[in-house]
C-alpha cells in the first residue's frame, strides 16, 4: 500500500469521524484518558524519584569518604588532603573524622576489630565498655555543611572549637539519662581503644587496650538521636560523643598508634550538587567516581601511587533507594490500575457503541457487495486515526496533568507558582509515550479485531433490523454480581469491626485461636474484598438502577412537574438497557473518586494529627538549658497558659522509659486526641490524675503497658539511679506508682513507651536521683514548654517574640506547620490521590456525555413524534430529566456506598505505605467528611444530568420532518 493510499485512506477515515463525531466520543475519550494516565504516571513517578533522590543527596552529611591506605599515614595526612581540595568547585566542604568505621584486620586465623568506647565514669560507673562511642572531629566541623545536617536538631551548638579545653557534644539520650544539659561539666570521661579478637580460636580475648581520661569536659551541645539522610548514614547514629581531634593530640599518644594502624580516620567530603547531574543517577555516580580519583591523584606519595582510597557513599544508598522506588512504583500502579481498567473499558465499550451505531451501515455495505475484509479495513483505519488523535492529545495532557499532580501540596491543594517544577515535567519522555501508546494500541487492536469481526459476521437481515437485543453478561445471568457485592460489603464490615472500631478485642481472637493479621486473612478479606466490591458494585449497578426507580416510579411520577409526561417517562424507564453501561461506568468511576476523596481527607487529617501530637499545644518551645522559664513566657500578653514538660529517665523491671511531667490542670487543653486513650477515657483518667492519694498516679504508654503486662489499677515501681558525687557511691531508688490510664500517644511527642506523671511525682523522682539533696520550689525546671495562646492572637507574631527569649533553641508552631504540611516530602501520596479523584470524575462526566449523546440520538425519532403530537420543548427536557434522574441518583448513591466500602478495605494498605515511608505512628482512622461525599456525588449527578439535557437540545432543535420521515 503506497504512501498516497495510506494518506487517502486516513483522510477518508478522518472525514467519516468528523461526520459522526458523536459515536466516536466514548472511544476517543477512553484513548485520551488511557494514554494520559499511563504516560502521566510514568512522567510523574520519574520526576518524583528524581526529587526524592535530590532530597537524599541534599540531606546527606557527605557523599564521599577517604581513608588512608598505609598505616604510616594518619589523621594529619587526611587533613592535608582536605586543605588541597578546598578550592575544588565540585566540593562544598570537607573535614576529617576519627571514629568508628569498624575496621577488621585479618590475620591468618584470627580477625580483629578495633573499638572506641567511652565510660562516663562518674555518671555510669557500673557500665564497662558502654555504647557511647566517641567521634573526634576537626574544629572546622562546626562550619561545614556536614555538621549542618545534624545541627538543625541540636540544643546549644556544635561548638568544639576550643583546642585547649575539653568540650563535647552529646546525644539527647545521654543527656536525658544522666540529666545533663548544655553547660554541664562531666568530671571524668575515659576513652578506651581496644583491639579485640573477633573471630578465631582466641575470640573475645582483648589483644591490646589503651585508655586515656578526659577531665572536666564541658557539654556544649545536645543533639537529637537521629541524624543523616533517612538514618542511612550509620556514622551519625545515636549514642556518639563528639570531641575535638585536638584531644587526641593532647592525650592520645598511646592510642594514636592503634588508631593509625587500624586507619580509623576518614576524610568526609560533601559535594556541591550543582556541579553534578543529580537527575541521572548513573551519570552522577560516574562524576563522583571521577572526583574520587582526582582527589586520590592529589594524595600521591613517594611510591608514586595514591595514599588514600575513596568510597562513593551515595552508591551504597542507591540500593535501598531503588528498593524504595520500586515499592513506590508498585504503590502507584495499585492506585492507578483501577483508572486504567476504567479507561480501557471506556475504550472498549466506546468501540462497541460506535459499531452498534454502524450496524445498519455495515449491513447496507454488505448488501452492496462489500466483503468482510473491506468493511474491516474501513473500521480499522478509522480506529487508527482516532487512536492517533487521541494518543497525541493524551500525551500532551499527561505532561500538563503530571505537573498539576506534582504541584499538589495536599489533597486537592496545589502550588502552581513554581515554574521550575513545570520545566521538570515538560521534557519529552520517550518511555512514557512508548509505554502508554503500546498498551492502549494493543487493547484497541484486540478490541477492533474481536468486536469488528462480530459485527461484520452478523447476518445482513439482523444487521438492518431495528433495535438490538440486550444480552445480560455472564455475571448478571448467574447472579454472581450479587455474591460479589455481598462479599465485598461483608469484608468492609469486618474491617470496620476489627480495625476501625476494634469492636472485637485482642482477647476475643485469642479465645477463638484466630489471628486476623495473617497473610491469608489479608488476602481473603482485603484483597478479594476490594476486587469483588469494586467490580460487583459496578456490574450490579444496572440491576439496582432498574429496581429502585421501578419501586419508586409511582411516587416519583406523581410529582406535579412530571405528571404531564409521566406516561412517556414510564416508557423510557422500561427501556433501560440503553443505560446499563452508563450505570456501570458511573459506579466504577464514582467509587474510585469516593475512595480517593476519603483517603485524601484521611491522609490530610493524619498529617495534621501527627503534627498536633508532636507539638501538643499551640507551641512547643525548647531551650538549651533546663530551668524554669514560665514567667518569661507568660510575660507576653498573647499567652494563655504554659506547661513545663520536665523529664526523668527511669526503669520499670527491665524496660527503660522516660517519665514526663505534666500539669493536670492544663492537660485537658492540650492537643490530646481521645483516640489516643485506651481503656478509660482521657476525661476519667484526668479526673483521677488530679486527685491526690497515698500513691502517686501515672498514665503509661500502651507499648510499655504491654511489655510490663500492666493495666489500670496496677502498681509498678519506677527505678532511678542515685548519683552521689561526694561519696562516689551509686545506688538505686524506687518509687511506687499507680497506673490510672494508658495512652497510644500523648501531646508533645510522648510516645507509647513513656510515662506521664504530675509535677509532684517528677519532683519526687528528681529528688531521689539527687539523693534527697535537691530542693525545688514551685518552679519546676524543664527544657521544653508547651504553650497555648489566647484566641484571636497573631500566632506568628507571638512565635517571633518567643525566639528572643534567653536560651531559646527551637520552636514548633502547630498552626504554621499545619499550613506548611504540603511542603514536606509526602512521597507524592496527596498528588496520586488527587489524580485518582480528578481522573475518575473526568472519566465519569465524559462517559455521561458520550453515552447520553448516543442514547438521545437513538431516541430522536421518538422525541420528534412527541413534538409533532404537541409536546413543548420544556416537556421534552422534563421527560429526559425524569427518565434519567432516578437512575442516575441511584447510580450515584450506589457508587458512593461502594467507594465507602473500598475506603475501609484499602485503609490498611494506605496505613502500611504510610508507616513504610515513615509518616508517623498514629493510627490511620478514616475521616468521613459527609459534605465532601455529598459534593462529590452532586458533581457527578449534575454532570450526568447536564450531559443528558445538553444531548436533548439537539433533539429539540432537530428537523421534525426528517426525524419522523419513514425510512
Amino acid at each position, binding site marked *: 500500500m503506497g504512501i498516497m493510499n495510506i494518506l487517502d485512506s486516513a483522510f477518508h477515515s478522518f472525514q467519516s469521524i468528523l461526520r459522526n463525531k458523536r459515536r466516536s466520543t466514548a472511544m476517543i475519550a477512553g484513548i485520551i484518558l488511557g494514554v494520559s494516565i499511563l504516560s502521566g504516571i510514568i512522567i510523574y513517578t520519574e520526576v518524583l524519584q528524581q526529587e526524592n533522590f535530590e532530597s537524599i543527596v541534599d540531606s546527606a552529611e557527605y557523599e564521599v569518604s577517604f581513608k588512608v591506605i598505609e598505616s604510616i599515614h594518619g589523621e594529619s595526612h587526611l587533613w592535608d588532603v582536605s586543605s588541597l581540595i578546598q578550592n575544588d568547585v565540585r566540593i562544598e566542604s570537607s573535614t576529617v573524622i576519627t571514629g568508628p568505621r569498624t575496621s577488621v584486620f585479618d590475620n591468618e586465623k584470627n580477625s580483629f576489630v578495633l573499638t572506641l568506647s567511652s565510660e562516663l565514669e562518674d555518671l555510669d560507673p557500673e557500665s564497662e565498655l558502654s555504647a557511647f562511642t566517641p567521634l573526634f572531629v576537626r574544629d572546622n566541623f562546626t562550619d561545614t555543611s556536614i555538621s549542618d545536617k545534624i545541627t538543625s536538631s541540636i540544643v546549644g551548638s556544635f561548638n568544639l572549637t576550643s583546642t585547649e579545653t575539653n568540650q563535647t557534644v552529646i546525644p539527647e539520650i545521654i543527656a536525658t539519662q544522666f540529666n545533663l544539659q548544655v553547660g554541664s561539666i562531666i568530671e571524668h570521661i575515659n576513652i578506651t581503644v581496644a583491639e579485640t579478637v573477633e573471630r578465631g580460636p582466641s575470640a573475645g580475648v582483648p589483644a591490646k587496650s589503651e585508655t586515656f581520661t578526659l577531665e572536666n569536659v564541658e557539654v556544649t551541645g545536645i543533639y537529637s538521636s537521629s541524624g543523616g539522610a533517612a538514618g542511612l548514614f550509620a556514622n551519625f547514629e545515636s549514642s556518639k560523643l563528639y570531641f575535638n581531634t585536638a584531644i587526641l593530640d593532647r592525650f592520645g599518644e598511646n592510642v594514636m598508634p592503634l588508631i593509625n594502624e587500624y586507619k580509623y580516620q576518614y576524610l568526609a567530603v560533601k559535594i556541591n550538587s550543582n556541579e553534578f547531574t543529580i537527575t541521572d543517577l548513573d551519570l552522577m555516580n560516574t562524576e563522583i567516581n571521577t572526583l574520587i580519583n582526582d582527589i586520590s591523584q592529589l594524595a600521591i606519595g613517594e611510591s608514586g601511587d595514591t595514599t588514600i582510597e575513596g568510597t562513593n557513599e551515595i552508591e551504597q544508598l542507591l540500593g535501598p533507594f531503588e528498593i524504595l522506588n520500586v515499592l513506590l512504583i508498585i504503590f502507584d500502579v495499585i492506585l492507578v490500575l483501577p483508572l486504567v481498567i476504567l479507561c480501557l473499558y471506556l475504550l472498549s465499550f466506546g468501540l462497541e457503541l460506535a459499531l452498534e451505531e454502524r450496524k445498519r451501515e455495515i449491513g447496507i455495505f454488505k448488501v452492496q457487495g462489500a466483503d468482510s475484509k473491506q468493511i474491516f479495513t474501513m473500521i480499522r483505519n478509522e480506529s487508527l486515526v482516532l487512536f492517533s488523535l487521541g494518543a497525541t492529545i493524551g500525551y500532551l495532557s499527561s505532561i500538563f496533568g503530571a505537573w498539576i499532580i506534582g504541584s499538589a501540596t495536599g489533597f486537592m491543594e496545589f502550588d502552581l507558582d513554581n515554574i521550575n517544577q513545570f520545566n521538570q515535567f515538560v521534557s519529552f519522555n520517550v518511555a512514557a509515550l512508548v509505554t502508554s501508546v503500546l498498551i492502549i494500541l494493543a487493547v484497541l487492536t484486540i478490541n477492533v479485531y474481536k468486536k469488528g469481526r462480530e459485527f461484520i459476521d452478523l447476518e445482513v437481515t439482523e444487521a438492518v433490523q431495528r433495535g438490538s437485543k440486550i444480552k445480560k453478561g455472564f455475571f448478571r445471568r448467574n447472579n454472581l454480581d450479587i455474591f460479589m457485592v455481598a462479599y465485598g460489603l461483608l469484608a468492609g464490615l469486618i474491617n470496620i469491626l476489627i480495625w476501625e472500631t476494634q469492636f472485637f478485642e485482642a482477647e476475643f481472637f485469642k479465645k477463638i485461636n484466630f489471628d486476623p493479621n495473617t497473610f491469608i486473612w489479608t488476602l481473603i478479606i482485603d484483597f478479594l474484598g476490594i476486587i469483588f466490591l469494586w467490580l460487583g458494585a459496578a456490574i450490579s449497578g444496572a440491576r439496582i438502577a432498574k429496581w429502585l426507580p421501578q419501586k419508586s416510579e409511582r411516587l416519583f411520577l406523581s410529582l406535579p412537574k412530571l405528571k404531564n409526561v409521566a406516561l*412517556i417517562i414510564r416508557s423510557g424507564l422500561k427501556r433501560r438497557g440503553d443505560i446499563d453501561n452508563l450505570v456501570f461506568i458511573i459506579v466504577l468511576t464514582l467509587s474510585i473518586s469516593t475512595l480517593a476523596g476519603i483517603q485524601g481527607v484521611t491522609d490530610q487529617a493524619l498529617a495534621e494529627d501527627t503534627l498536633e501530637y508532636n507539638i501538643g499545644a499551640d507551641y512547643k518551645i525548647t531551650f538549651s538549658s533546663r530551668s524554669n522559664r514560665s514567667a518569661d513566657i507568660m510575660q507576653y500578653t498573647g499567652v494563655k497558659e504554659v506547661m513545663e514538660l520536665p523529664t526523668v529517665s527511669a526503669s520499670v523491671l527491665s524496660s527503660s522509659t522516660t517519665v514526663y511531667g505534666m500539669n493536670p490542670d492544663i492537660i485537658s487543653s492540650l492537643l490530646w486526641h481521645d483516640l489516643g486513650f485506651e481503656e478509660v477515657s482521657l476525661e476519667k483518667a484526668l479526673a483521677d490524675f488530679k486527685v491526690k492519694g497515698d500513691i502517686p498516679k501515672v498514665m503509661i504508654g500502651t507499648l510499655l503497658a504491654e511489655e510490663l503486662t500492666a493495666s489500670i489499677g496496677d502498681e509498678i515501681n519506677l527505678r532511678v539511679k542515685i548519683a552521689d558525687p561526694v561519696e562516689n557511691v551509686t545506688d538505686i531508688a524506687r518509687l511506687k506508682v499507680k497506673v490510672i490510664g494508658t495512652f497510644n500517644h500523648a501531646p508533645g511527642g510522648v510516645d507509647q513507651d513513656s510515662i506521664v506523671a504530675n509535677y509532684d511525682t517528677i519532683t519526687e523522682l528528681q529528688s531521689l536521683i539527687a539523693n534527697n539533696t535537691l530542693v525545688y520550689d514551685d518552679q519546676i525546671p524543664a527544657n521544653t514548654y508547651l504553650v497555648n495562646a489566647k484566641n484571636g492572637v497573631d500566632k506568628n507574631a507571638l512565635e517571633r517574640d518567643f525566639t528572643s527569649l534567653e536560651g531559646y533553641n527551637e520552636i514548633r508552631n502547630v498552626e504554621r506547620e499545619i499550613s506548611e504540611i504540603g511542603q514536606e516530602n509526602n512521597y507524592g501520596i496527596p498528588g496520586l490521590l488527587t489524580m485518582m479523584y480528578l481522573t475518575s470524575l473526568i472519566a465519569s462526566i465524559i462517559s455521561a456525555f458520550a453515552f447520553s449523546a448516543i442514547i438521545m440520538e437513538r431516541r430522536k425519532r421518538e422525541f420528534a413524534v412527541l*413534538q409533532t403530537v*404537541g409536546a413543548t420543548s420544556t416537556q421534552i427536557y422534563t421527560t429526559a430529566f425524569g427518565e434519567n434522574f432516578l437512575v442516575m441518583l441511584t447510580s450515584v448513591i450506589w457508587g458512593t456506598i461502594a467507594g465507602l466500602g473500598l475506603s475501609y478495605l484499602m485503609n490498611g494498605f494506605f496505613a502500611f505505605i504510610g508507616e513504610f515511608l515513615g509518616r508517623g505512628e498514629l493510627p490511620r482512622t478514616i475521616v468521613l467528611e459527609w459534605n465532601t461525599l455529598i459534593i462529590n456525588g452532586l458533581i457527578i449527578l449534575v454532570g450526568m444530568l447536564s450531559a443528558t439535557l445538553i444531548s436533548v437540545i439537539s433533539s429539540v432543535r432537530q428537523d421534525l420532518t426528517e426525524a419522523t420521515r419513514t425510512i
Partner: protein
Amino acid sequence: MNTELKIQTTDLYKDFGPDVQVLKGIDLKIKSGDFIALMGPSGSGKSTLLNILGALIRGTEGEVEINGRSINNLNKKELTLIRRHEIGWIFQDFNLLQNLTAIENVMIPLHLDGMTGKNATEKAMKLLERVDLADRAHHLTDALSGGQQQRVAIARALANDPDIILADEPTGNLDSESGKSIINLFLELAKEGKSVLMVSHDVALANSAHKVYVLQNGKLVEEIDSMEVEI
C-alpha cells in the same frame, strides 16, 4: 354541515437552498368536512406541503392559515400548541411509543395538555372504542397488528379533538383490507366535520376521498373529483 375554511394557503413557496424550490405558489383551500387526497410523483412536494400545513416547517413565501389564523409568524411554542389542539398527525410508520399500551399511547396528547387521571383514561377508552380497539386497550403496541397500530395512531390523533387530520401515507404499511378500514375511518371523520388531508400513492384509496389534488413539480396542477381518478 359547517363548511368553514380550515386550511388556506395563498401563493405558498418553499425553497430548500438556492437551487431547490419544492413548492411554487400553492393556493389551497380545505374546508371542514373535506376529505382530500394529495397525490403526485416522488419528489413533487407532497410531504413538504403536508409538513407546512402541519406546522412542522414554515414556507419560504406565501400565507398559511389554520382555522382562519395565519401561522407564518407564530413562535415555536405557539406552533406546538397548534399541533396539539388543532391538528392530528398520522404517519405511515405509526410512530407509537414502545413499552406503552394502546390506551397509554392514546393518552399521551391528553397528558401533554394537562388532562390526567380518570378523565384521560375514560376519554382514551372512548377513542379506542371509536376505532374498534377497546378490547385491546391494555395490550402493548408491539402485540398489535399493523392495522391495529394505525388505528391506535388515529385514536391518538383524535385525542385533543383537532379539526384537521393530516395523514402521510397512512396505509403504506398495511394490507388492502386494513387500508380500506382506515379510509372508512377517515370518511367518518370527514362526515363529522373534520378536515382530512391524506398523502397517498394508492390510486384506489385516493379514489375514496372527496377530492384529489395532484402535485407536479411543486405546483398544484389538477384538482380532480375522485370519481375521475383512474385506477
